């Protein structure tokens, strides 16, 4: 333990990654030599250090990231369930032996496997159905709220006029409590992965545009952008604007507005 005492003062900085290279290497060597006390102390210090993550301002990743990840993960899970038989450089006898073994195994376990496959299919179907149901419920909730905003007499209508006279007009309905819905038809789709982004222009003179959500028009140029928690109150906002931005949106406008609508 005496040997450990000289390392104790390095434990926290080691877990934090703040040790200079030489000290880090010395402690590494000591732990690698099998000191369980120091190894345990390092694990505890790592637990403490991991809490520092909560000092980071809280933010959420985009929905696109989750979709991208789930697509990859599902594809890999499906591939891993597929049997792959590769026997490079085997002789005919080896092949025949392997084939006979496989046939024997398949025959003896056929019934069990059939049931297991049914169980697996049932699991997949149940999970799929649950996901679909959840998605539908979410979509329904969003749609219901959009309809409320569009139909409620308390909503304020804002016409967003295109800067290019040939482009179609957008229309926003802003309900003081339920949020904003911006809609339009035959709206052009921005090139590549770029998106349309909504901005709230504050009444305060000199204040910067406040960024809101982004959208890419659907089939037929259908444009629906619900913003249920606008970053500013309607009373504080003098206009809405829409610009073209990179995927994920921008903190400040990087292009000139394509649609602008004043709030009367």
């Amino acid at each position: 333990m005496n040997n450990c005492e000289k390392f104790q003062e390095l434990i926290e900085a080691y877990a934090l990654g703040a040790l200079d290279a030489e000290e880090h290497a010395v402690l590494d060597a000591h732990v690698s030599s099998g000191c369980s006390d120091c190894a345990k102390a390092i694990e505890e210090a790592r637990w403490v250090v991991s809490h520092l993550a909560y000092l980071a301002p809280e933010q959420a990743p985009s929905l696109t990231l989750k979709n991208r990840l789930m697509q990859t993960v599902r594809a890999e899970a499906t591939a891993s369930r597929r049997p792959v038989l590769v026997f490079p450089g085997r002789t005919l006898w080896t092949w025949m032996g392997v084939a006979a073994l496989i046939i024997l195994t398949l025959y003896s376990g056929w019934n069990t496997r059939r049931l297991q496959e049914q169980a697996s299919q049932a699991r997949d179907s149940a999970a799929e159905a649950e996901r679909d149901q959840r998605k539908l419920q979410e979509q329904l909730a969003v749609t219901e709220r959009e309809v409320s905003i569009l139909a409620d007499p308390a909503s304020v209508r804002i016409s967003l006029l295109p800067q290019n006279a040939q482009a179609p007009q957008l229309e926003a309905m802003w309900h003081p409590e339920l949020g904003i819905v911006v809609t339009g038809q035959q709206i052009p789709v921005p090139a590549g992965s770029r998106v349309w982004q909504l901005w709230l222009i504050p009444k305060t003179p000199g204040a910067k545009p406040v960024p809101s959500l982004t959208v890419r028009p659907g089939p037929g140029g259908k444009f629906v952008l619900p913003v249920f928690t606008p970053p500013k109150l309607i009373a504080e906002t003098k206009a809405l604007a829409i610009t073209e931005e990179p995927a994920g949106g921008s903190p400040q406008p990087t292009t000139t507005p394509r649609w602008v609508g004043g709030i009367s």
Partner: protein
Amino acid sequence: MSSDCSSGPYTSEGAKRESVLLEILNFSSQREVPPEATLPQRLIHKDVKAFEQLYDLHSRIVYSLVRRIIQQSSTAEEVVQDVFLHLWRNAAQYNPEKGPFVPWLLTLARNRALDHLRLKSERQRRREDLTEVMPPLAIAPGYEEVLDQKRRAERVQALMSSLHPRQKQAIELAYFEGLSHSEIAETLKEPLGTVKSWIRNGLQRLKERLQATS
């Protein structure tokens, strides 16, 4: 019935059928109350649902941490994707006997983000982008999850704010920017010994308070 089903590989055909049926029943009950603690283990068996649950539970704190380190949203998402794919493909690397899952995941995320920062020499660019405003949230978060993270964040922030501001700054420079003792001493224009004792004492105080409130 249950004792027959767990009698090993040499079960009769009937017992095998029962074990399959039991598997279905067990699955149903797991689906209703997913035990969070077993999610990482389920990844080893390529359980997509477990992965999605883990992502939903932890993606916000992982993204917040990586975004704070990298200071650039699109690059941060690339790193977060890398972290979760690593988790998916190498789930067996996590050993529950060595500690809880979340600290392990956050350590992995922090290391990946700092590696990225070093490799891409983004530190200079980050300084130029310091005025960047945080982008709006792209998805509505789950209320309970946000509340839980808020509580944790408030607890850690309260603990850290009780430290001397320079001491807190030294710890943050090490954690979020990956600076060493010497680099921090140079940045803060303080003696090396002072920086070392700030960091050590600060983390020890944090540990004591975390243990007291756990």
